[in-house]
């Protein structure tokens, strides 16, 4: 398992460098569309480590074609030059009736399916690569339809899932979607996310995906139970932190992940062939 850390802008660059130097991470996941104004040659020098691309604000389901065409040209140049481990994007709603949603909304996995399928086909063609689409940290009941939606989308478009382990735990705690519902997707996926989430201030039986604290026991338990399925050839696990950058906590979580997957690769090696 290759372990990575997300890099979104400026402030955390020294932290990323230290995590690379100490060997805690193997690659950096770039929130790539934040850097479209940086000369590609400068991007290529980067952190001197492998990178993956996380596209945040293409809004490819709802954005107009001209804006996406222009973005695709610039993204493709970076894909060719930096050869990312994967290219990922988001299935979510960014606007409602012309109004920006700052906390992205979850799509209706049933009624929106056809539209999303067409846009995924189109966006993959524009980018000239396979996309990995992240699962949403559901709060409401629609989240229960997400695994089937992602399986169907994979079948129809070839897009992979960037499976966010802690988002699945959020959906489990919030809308009762069993973690086992993702088994088929985990089996087929190679690229994963993991992060801390927080209890809702108003209703502590609910959780909100905050990326501001250490991994929960539920998340670590989930990883532990499925560790051999996560840890396959070429697999990646990006640890996300977007707030409250306590370095000792981050190091501790990364060490726990490294330890967990080192153990599973030994087991996989020793396991009898069947």
């Amino acid at each position, binding site marked *: 398992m290759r372990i990575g850390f997300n890099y979104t802008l400026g402030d955390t660059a020294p932290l990323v460098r230290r995590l690379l130097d100490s060997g805690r991470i193997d690659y950096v996941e770039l929130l790539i569309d934040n850097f479209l104004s*940086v000369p590609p040659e400068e991007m290529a020098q980067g952190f001197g480590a492998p990178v993956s691309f996380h596209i945040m604000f293409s809004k490819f389901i709802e954005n107009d074609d001209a804006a996406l065409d222009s973005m695709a040209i610039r993204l493709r140049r970076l894909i060719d030059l930096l050869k990312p481990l994967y290219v990922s994007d988001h299935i979510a709603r960014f606007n409602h009736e012309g109004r920006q949603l700052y906390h992205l909304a979850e799509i209706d996995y049933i009624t929106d399916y056809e539209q999303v399928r067409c846009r995924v086909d189109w966006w993959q063609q524009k980018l000239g690569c396979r996309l990995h689409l992240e699962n949403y940290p559901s709060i409401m009941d629609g989240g229960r339809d997400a695994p089937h939606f992602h399986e169907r989308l994979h079948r129809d478009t070839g897009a992979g899932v960037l499976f966010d382990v802690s988002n699945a735990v959020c959906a489990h705690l919030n809308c009762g979607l069993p973690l086992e519902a993702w088994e088929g997707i985990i089996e087929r996926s190679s690229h994963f996310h993991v992060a801390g989430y927080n209890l809702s201030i108003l209703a502590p039986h609910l959780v909100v995906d905050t990326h501001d604290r250490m991994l929960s026991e539920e998340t670590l338990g989930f990883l532990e139970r499925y560790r051999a399925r996560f840890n396959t050839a070429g697999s990646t696990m990006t640890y996300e932190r977007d707030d409250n950058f306590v370095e000792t906590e981050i190091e501790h979580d990364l060490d726990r992940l490294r330890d967990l997957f080192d153990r599973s690769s030994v087991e996989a090696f020793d396991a009898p062939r069947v």
Partner: protein
Amino acid sequence: MHRVSDSRVIDADLLDSLTVPARQGDYARDSRAFVRIDTSLRVYWHTLFDICPGLLELSGPDGLAIFRPFMTWADEQKLSLNWTYYLWVDVWLQQSAFRDQIEVELRYALMGASAARWATGDRSEAQGIVLGAADLPNLVCGWKTVTLEGGREIEQIELEAPLPTPDGSHGYFLVPSRSLDDGFPGWSPIPR
């Protein structure tokens, strides 16, 4: 523990309420819908007051005397809440009971916040934005980052010879490269 509710509510059912504080009251305080709407509103709150803490001196520490009426007005006016969010807060403040307490520095801070939001959120090929206000002398520029480890930059520019006044409360123009040498292309009205 999962709460069992008799009817299925999905995220898309709540879209009309995600930006309007008054509509949160349509749901029970301990319901998931209430928490979901609260999560959404909190992001708008933090986006405003974390970036422009000077507003809290007007509104009081919870910000609600500004936040609630502004978001209601934004809904009525069908504002997009895009990068111009802070500029429309300025417009609202000018016609609110806070009108006489707003210092020039706060108004420039709001312009700087909008320029910064453009510089981090815009995905077009433009490199910079210039903002002007009808009744303020200085311009505020926002530049996108040109290095991997850097960030957006905001600057205030004092002009020797003033530009024409924008038609509305504010005007903007985009700059294709990182320089203002190409001259003044004219003000565009800020989008709603």
